């Protein structure tokens, strides 16, 4: 098995004052008063709990590339209707950036490579609120065909994430800046994670058909 690639630290999220301001704005956003004036929240994030990046101000670096927004945003009638103002870049790993963003009822994780390619998906906000990590299994280029990768984001109380290989080997994916990524050249069969109570959870990986 080739070496595990780990997440380098992204620039630390600072400014507690900004966080407090964003929290206040978030409280306003959650009020349901149809007669209230519409408040444009230029800097606050979404309302999914457990992901610190959503509570800080949006930087220019957080915005989704135009091609990604074209597919995840309101221009795609069969997409999740992601709001660009909720997008946050949570981590960078190797040559990819990991983003989170919210749609009308969806929580999305998106991985953008430096060649302009990307992959990602969305689940329900209610599920993202449940304290589980949001993981995607995908394939990446390698000299001998494909490597296997599991990547995603995790709420702050998730303790560990790992990819379990066919031979039972558990390859850990350290969670840094709320994101994790594990790439191997052996196929994974399950994604495992440990919650705040040290309970282990497992999700099966659906491998591609054999060609």
């Amino acid at each position: 098995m080739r070496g595990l690639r780990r997440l380098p630290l992204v620039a630390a999220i600072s400014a507690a004052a900004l966080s407090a301001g964003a929290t206040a704005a978030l409280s306003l956003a959650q009020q349901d008063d149809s007669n209230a004036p519409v408040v444009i929240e230029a800097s606050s994030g979404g309302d999914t709990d457990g992901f610190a990046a959503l509570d800080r101000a949006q930087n220019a670096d957080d915005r989704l590339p135009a091609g990604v927004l074209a597919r995840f945003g309101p221009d795609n009638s069969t997409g999740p209707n992601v709001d660009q103002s909720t997008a946050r870049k949570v981590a960078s790993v190797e040559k990819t950036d990991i983003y989170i963003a919210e749609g009308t009822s969806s929580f999305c994780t998106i991985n953008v490579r430096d060649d302009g390619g990307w992959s990602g998906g969305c689940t329900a906000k209610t599920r993202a609120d449940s304290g589980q990590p949001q993981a995607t299994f995908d394939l990446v280029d390698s000299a001998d065909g494909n490597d296997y990768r599991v990547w995603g984001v995790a709420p702050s109380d998730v303790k560990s994430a790992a990819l379990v290989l066919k031979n039972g080997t558990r390859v850990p994916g350290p969670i840094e800046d709320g994101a994790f990524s594990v790439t191997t050249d052996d196929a994974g069969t399950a994604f495992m994670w440990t919650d705040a109570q040290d309970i282990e959870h497992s999700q099966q990986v659906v491998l591609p058909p054999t060609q």
Partner: protein
Amino acid sequence: VFKVSPSVRSRASLTLLRSDAKRKTVALTVLVLAFGTFAIAATSASAITSDYCGYNPGSGNQCYEGSGYRGWRYHQASTGSGGPIVASICAYSWNGSAYRPGSGCTSSYNFYAFCNPSDSPNGNSSVLYVNNPGVTLYGHADSRVPC
């Protein structure tokens, strides 16, 4: 007084009927052609519809690119906007020698998509979607819209 015999009247009526039928036929043909032109125009203007792959595909379902479908650089599996969460939602694209980067799978999602700028819109390969019950599948390769 010129009298029209019943037989002549009948022939005249028949001629009139034939003429009327011809006009109706011509009008109908024009309508059909017009609608067809409109339908073709509407289809080509809506790439996401023309690139529809299938609904509720079983394991190994394929949409062949370059034969009936254009080559795709953008792939999407979706239960629809805000649609139900499914156990797994996958989209794998095989380029003849390897799976395209981004081909992948998620659990408990309702939307999965990937895009590769290096994929040829004219490529002749296939897309496979694995066990996507309740999912509608699309591919898209409009070169006017980069990744």
